[in-house]
């Protein structure tokens, strides 16, 4: 007579001999995702991160900036104090802003915020450059960040005024 409490040989969770041998249905994963595989992946990650810095150095060595062209930005008569005008310099892909400050100074910077590249605007009331995306503030006289997430200054566009016309003649990345 068989014990009724004992599970049938082929039923789930049985303790019958030679049945639990097939319990490890995840054995393929155990072979793939183990301690040794983890360490090998970690080494691969570390090496990949190290190698990922190389293209920046290569591009930095190749990308020495050439001489800048002299480009007309605006006529002074079209730019009253407290006003600004946007332009592109040195290429069409580099947006920039020329500001005639409330103090009468002319300042020009590349207008892509150094945080996440949103365009900055001139705030006449506060006499600052403002990036509205994450409330980044830049000093209009130096281009350096004064508040918010940006950590670097805006690239300075060197300007010249000739016969009432403002020209862009160069650019400085780190200044002041």
């Amino acid at each position, binding site marked *: 007579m068989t014990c009724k409490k004992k599970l049938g040989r082929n039923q789930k969770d049985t303790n019958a001999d030679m049945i639990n041998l097939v319990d490890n249905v995840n054995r393929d994963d155990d072979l793939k995702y183990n301690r040794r595989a983890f360490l090998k992946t970690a*080494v691969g990650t*570390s*090496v990949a*991160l*190290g190698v990922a*810095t190389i293209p*920046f150095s290569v591009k930095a060595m190749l990308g020495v900036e050439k001489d800048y062209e002299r480009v007309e930005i605006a006529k002074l008569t079209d730019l009253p104090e407290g006003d600004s005008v946007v332009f592109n310099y040195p290429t069409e892909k580099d947006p920039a802003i020329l500001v005639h400050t409330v103090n009468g100074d002319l300042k020009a910077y590349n207008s892509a915020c150094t945080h996440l590249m949103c365009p900055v605007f001139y705030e006449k009331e506060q006499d600052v450059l403002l990036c509205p995306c994450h409330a980044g503030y830049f000093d209009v006289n130096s281009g350096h960040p004064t508040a918010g997430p940006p950590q670097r200054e805006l690239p300075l566009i060197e300007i010249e005024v000739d016969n009432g016309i403002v020209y862009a003649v160069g650019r400085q*990345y780190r200044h002041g």
Partner: protein
Amino acid sequence: MGKKTCWAIIIATIVINVVMLQWTVEAFLGRDYEILLTYNVISLVSAGIALFAYLQWRKVEYKKQ
């Protein structure tokens, strides 16, 4: 060098390389090319150390008893 030491070294190199990559990108965008090269060298040395630690670990791990 023991297995645990190798593990510690490899994890440490990952941390270093993540930070170096971040700083490299920052230096590149800010046109700080001299410091960029320094970060680059540190990162590559760190990757080399990770590889060396892995080879040491493999030697110990797969050694026949």
